[in-house]
Each structure stands twice: as structure tokens, then as C-alpha cells.
């Protein structure tokens, strides 16, 4: 026998042709009965129940996805998440800015502390004379001080100001005496705001300033507002002198 035999066999293969009329007739009756039953019953409801088993895992997955998406959306839009994203944007912007290295480091240090703080929260928006609309965020730094950060509302990438509120006597020694606590009148504070704005604009081209107040209460104070205690933490010695 050769392999050609196989093809010959296949070509001339006699496949059994079997007829089973009794079975065929019975099946036809059964199918027609089933067809009539399907027509008489409401169509969707039985199918729905039949398919329920099939779609149960898919449905569970879909529900889990919806819950996940809703939870995720809620989490993203939560005050902590939105405050975090604002801080992250601000950090990126400060890192790219042409600020004086010292000042940049100081601002970044505060922003990084804010980023890591567990109690970072968005306080709200406010209108300031110096920076226009700003968004205020508050957090507790590593020394347990309450700090308030102001970010320009129209351009979140540009941090407007950072205010810290701490216990009297504490401060950053690297700022060459600028962290001294002083009591000022409203007019003096206006001066601070003005001078700080001028100084910082000259350095970075952006309205960025770092302020710390001695008031332990968490209270947002924009430059030029009626704060009673404030410390200018500028790296400009002349300006710091003027502030004193």
C-alpha cells in the first residue's frame, strides 16, 4: 500500500448514510413544542434567568470596577489628594524656576514637608492684595509647627507664598536672623508684603515668598493682611535689615 491509496480512499470514501425517521419525527415534535413555548412565554425574562448564571462573574467584576472607579474618583477629589497634587505641581514649578538657590532650597524644604505631611489639607481660597487669588493649604511640619502655604490660584504651578505658624523663639538658623519674632503694625506688615514682593520678583520673576509667624493658631495671613506677628524669611540681608 502506498500513500496514494489514502487519497484514493478519501476521494472514493463511502460515508454511511443512515436514516432514523422515528428519532427524527420525535425530535421535530419536541423542537416545535419548545418553539411554541418560547413564543407564548415572555421572551426576555426566562432568558435573563438562564443567563444570570453565565453573567454572574462578569457582573461581579463590573460592579467591582464601578465601585473601584467611584472610590478612586472620590479619593482623587478628596481634600488630601487635591492638596497633594497642588503641592506636587508647586514643587515641580519651583524646581524649574530661576530662584536664588538658597531661597529655592528653603521653599522646596517647606513644600516637601507639606507633601509628606499626613495632615496636609486644603483650607480654601482667598483674595490677597499681593498675589491676587491664592489657594491656602495647611500642614504640621516635622517640628510640630502648623504651617500655611499659599499657592496662586490662577497658576497653581507658581507657589505664591508659604507661611508658617510656630511657637515663639523657634526658627530656621540658616536664615541669618530673619527668623526673629517681631511684633508689627498693619502698616509695617504692608511694607513687608510690598518689599518681599519686590525682592522676590527681582530674584525669581515670580511672586514667591516664605513667611513664618509666631502665632501658634493656624491662621492664613497673606502679606499685607492684618497679621499681628510675622517674620520675613527672605535671603536678602538688606531686606531683612529693613524688615527689622
Amino acid at each position: 500500500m502506498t500513500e496514494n491509496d489514502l487519497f484514493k480512499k478519501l476521494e472514493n470514501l463511502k460515508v454511511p448514510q443512515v436514516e432514523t425517521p422515528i428519532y427524527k419525527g420525535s425530535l421535530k415534535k419536541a423542537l416545535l413544542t419548545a418553539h411554541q413555548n418560547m413564543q407564548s412565554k415572555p421572551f426576555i425574562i426566562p432568558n435573563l434567568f438562564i443567563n444570570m448564571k453565565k453573567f454572574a462573574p462578569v457582573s461581579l467584576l463590573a460592579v467591582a470596577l464601578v465601585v473601584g472607579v467611584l472610590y478612586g474618583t472620590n479619593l482623587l477629589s478628596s481634600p488630601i489628594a487635591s492638596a497633594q497634587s497642588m503641592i506636587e505641581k508647586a514643587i515641580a514649578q519651583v524646581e524649574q524656576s530661576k530662584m536664588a538657590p538658597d531661597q529655592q532650597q528653603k521653599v522646596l524644604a517647606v513644600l516637601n514637608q507639606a507633601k509628606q505631611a499626613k495632615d496636609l489639607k486644603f483650607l480654601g481660597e482667598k483674595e490677597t492684595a499681593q498675589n491676587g487669588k491664592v489657594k491656602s493649604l495647611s500642614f504640621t511640619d516635622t517640628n510640630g509647627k502648623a504651617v500655611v502655604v499659599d499657592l496662586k490660584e490662577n497658576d497653581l504651578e507658581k507657589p505664591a507664598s508659604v507661611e508658617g505658624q510656630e511657637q515663639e523663639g523657634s526658627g530656621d538658623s540658616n536664615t541669618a536672623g530673619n527668623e526673629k519674632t517681631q511684633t508689627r503694625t498693619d502698616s509695617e506688615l504692608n511694607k513687608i508684603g510690598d518689599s518681599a514682593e519686590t525682592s522676590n520678583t527681582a530674584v525669581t520673576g515670580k511672586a514667591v515668598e516664605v513667611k513664618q509667624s509666631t502665632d501658634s493658631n493656624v491662621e492664613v495671613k497673606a502679606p499685607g493682611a492684618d497679621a499681628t506677628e510675622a517674620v520675613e524669611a527672605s535671603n536678602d540681608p538688606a531686606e531683612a535689615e529693613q524688615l527689622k
Partner: protein
Amino acid sequence: MKAEKILVERAKKDSDAFGEIYELHYQRIFNFILSRTADVAIAQDLTSETFLRALEKLWQFRWKNVPFSSWLFKIASNQINTHFRKGKTRPSSLDELYETTKFEPAILENAQTELIAAQEIVQKHSEFLEIKKLLTKIPVKYQEVIALRYFDQMKIAEIAEILQKKEGTVRALLSRGLSKLERLYIHDTSENLATRSPKENATF
């Protein structure tokens, strides 16, 4: 083709029209399944399951200028593959059909006699059974192409329609399947020759 389209549309709502479709296609579908299984009882079950599925899914059927039989063959082919994969003797949906419609041919004496007679006919086709035995040794994807081509005498284009594959793919499957079958055939034949007695070989 147009008449068939109208009949199929009617069959979605009219049981008589579905009966017409059944009469038109039953024998061909049954013999196709029988050629793959070589077992009348299994072929009856799978044929029933094929038409039951067709009835359940008929409302989803969309006419695409392809004969309705291609759709039925596709269902039948899937049923056969499921049968070989799972080794089930009877699909569970058939039990439901039997229960709801009080249809149970196995209990009818005439049906049993018919089944035995039919199986005897199948057993007489020794050459077919020989090929069928070899065919079950190759993967199912080759089996179905060879069965459609040689058992049901279908053209490549028809097979492509049923299996929803390109004609080139069907040709390739057929060619590879035949090569595998050929190897088995040669091996089987040489083994048979070797096991024969010297006397038998001398007369051969």
C-alpha cells in the same frame, strides 16, 4: 437564497417555518455528525443539541448572504468539538428539552430498534471506520476540515464559510492534516503487514 432568507425570518416567530427548516437540513447535519462520531446514538444527541441551539439562537441570526446550512454546520461542528473535548455522552440542555417536552426517544421500543439497525449499517462501512479511527488521532482542527472536505464533499469556500476562516487557512489546514493522516496511515499499514503471518504475506 431569497426564499431561504424569508423562511428563516419566518421561522423566528412561526414554528411551522422552523419545522420546514428542520426537514430541509436534518439529514445532512445528522450524517455529518455521524461521519465524525461513527456512533448513531451520539450523532442523534448532537443533532438534537444542534437544532435546539439553532432554535434558541435563531433570533440572533443575521443574514449575511451565506446559506443557512453554513450556520447550522458551524453549530454542529462546535457541538462535535465540545463532545470530543469534554467527552460528554449527552449535553445537559437536551435533558431539559426532554423534560419540558416529554420527548425521550430512548424509551420508545421502535426508536431502539431503529438505532441498533442504524449502527449495524455504520459497522458495515469498514473502510470509513478505518479512516475515522486514524482521523481521531490527529488534532480536532484538522479533523473537522478533512471531514467537511471528504466526508461531506464540501468545497474549500464552503468550509471557509462554516469555520469562518480564510480559504488559504483552510487549504493550509487541509494540507497539514492530510500529511499527518498520511504518516499515520503509512505507519498503520506497515504495522499491519509486519504482524501478518508469513503465509498471509505470501498470498498478499
